């Protein structure tokens, strides 16, 4: 198996990926593709789960080294649960994002994983936070990440509107994922979307052949 990952900067399985999170009126949509690659030319998994639930209304999407990302999210899930039990109330999205940021920043030499944390809490409603590779934490109305995100910066900057409806936002996220998956070779598979609102969490899975097609496909 060594021949597969000799030249990649990430050792082992990486989620060369497209991930995004977008707030809309009343909630947030977090989405990703489902491909895990090794060395840039072998797809280890077509159905990997990159949307990890860290608490009832808080999800994280992962990019970078799969091992590092899974280890960080496991630790974060434990710490957020403990925090929530001690506070006797659901955790704030900001708290969850800070936990991820602490782990990434304090271990920045050894880890190679980036995250997008998104969710809903009672204090500030729907929020999106991005935790970059070195541990930078930013709060944004929407964000994209992973290797495939470079191809959709233009699209998302042009098409994002604040206060969209749920359907508009779903369409926006689906289109963005489809465009990125179409151009990035290490993103692909199915599009996983999770809609988080005060009322609950809803998973939407769009198989590859049902994704929107654009003019050249």
């Amino acid at each position: 198996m060594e021949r597969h990952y000799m030249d990649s900067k990430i050792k082992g399985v990486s989620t060369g990926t497209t991930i995004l999170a977008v707030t809309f009126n009343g909630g947030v949509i977090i989405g990703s593709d489902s491909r895990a690659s090794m060395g840039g030319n072998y797809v280890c998994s077509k159905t990997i789960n990159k949307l990890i639930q860290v608490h009832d209304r808080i999800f994280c999407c992962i990019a970078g080294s799969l091992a590092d990302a899974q280890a960080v999210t496991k630790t974060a899930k434990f710490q957020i649960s403990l925090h929530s039990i001690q506070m006797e109330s659901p955790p704030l999205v900001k708290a969850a994002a800070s936990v991820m940021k602490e782990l990434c920043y304090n271990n920045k030499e050894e880890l190679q994983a980036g995250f997008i944390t998104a969710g809903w809490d009672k204090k500030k409603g729907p929020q999106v936070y991005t935790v970059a590779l070195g541990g930078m934490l930013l709060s944004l109305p929407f964000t994209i990440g992973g290797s495939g995100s470079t191809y959709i910066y233009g699209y998302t900057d042009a098409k994002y509107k604040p206060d969209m409806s749920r359907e508009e936002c779903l369409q926006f996220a689906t289109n963005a994922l489809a465009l990125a998956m179409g151009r990035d070779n290490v993103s692909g598979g199915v599009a996983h979307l999770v809609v988080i609102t005060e009322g609950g969490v809803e998973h939407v899975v769009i198989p590859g052949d049902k994704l929107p097609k654009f003019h050249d496909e």
Partner: protein
Amino acid sequence: MALPNVLETPPSGFNFENVFRNVALEGLLEGGRTKAPKPMKTGTTIAGVVCKDGVVLGADTRATSSEVVADKMCAKIHYIAPNIYCCGAGTAADTEKTTDLLSSNLTIFSMDSGRNPRVVMAANILQDMLFRYRGQIGAHLILGGVDCTGSHLYTVGPYGDIDKVTYLAMGSGDLAALGILEDRFKPNMELEEAKELVRDAIHSGIMSDLGSGNNIDICPTRSQSLKTRGKYTSIILVQHLF
């Protein structure tokens, strides 16, 4: 370095002390006259499939040391618990020891808690351990078994990444075996059909890969009473290929 008992939580945070040790060791070897010993690898084909009543795991039986076949009848399907088995590819010593440690810890856990271990627990323990060693333990594992929540099949990589799947092949012959699995896998197959599929997948790995060969071990794991499970748990299909 002893692996802590499964019921003790290790100190919080990540432990990277072995990174410094490894850098120091590499420095010593490169500068000096000694060369690091070449580990015996199980250039291998292993596969697993989830079927209707359980999980079928299969493996070839060749262990290689560079170009020489070191062991013609090597057992790559390791016992973890009565209801959980694990196939290992990569460095033979690493897969042996890792699965041994896991098996011991799960036995202690079973005795203390009075419960049968779950496959997901085994997968999590493996993930925690392998991640701590940063890929230095060359164990590529297929973990499969049946517990009270159903039949499960997990892949565990040497860096500590896990994925839950319905069919899987690993080792140097994985691409050949995956071809067979991708073509003929169907969800909810009967046990006999699944055993044949796994056997054919390993066979194709043996034919197309120099590092795999000799015989095929098949291990179906089903949710049955301990008495009959003992009878069906290990079936060795011997096929003389040369």
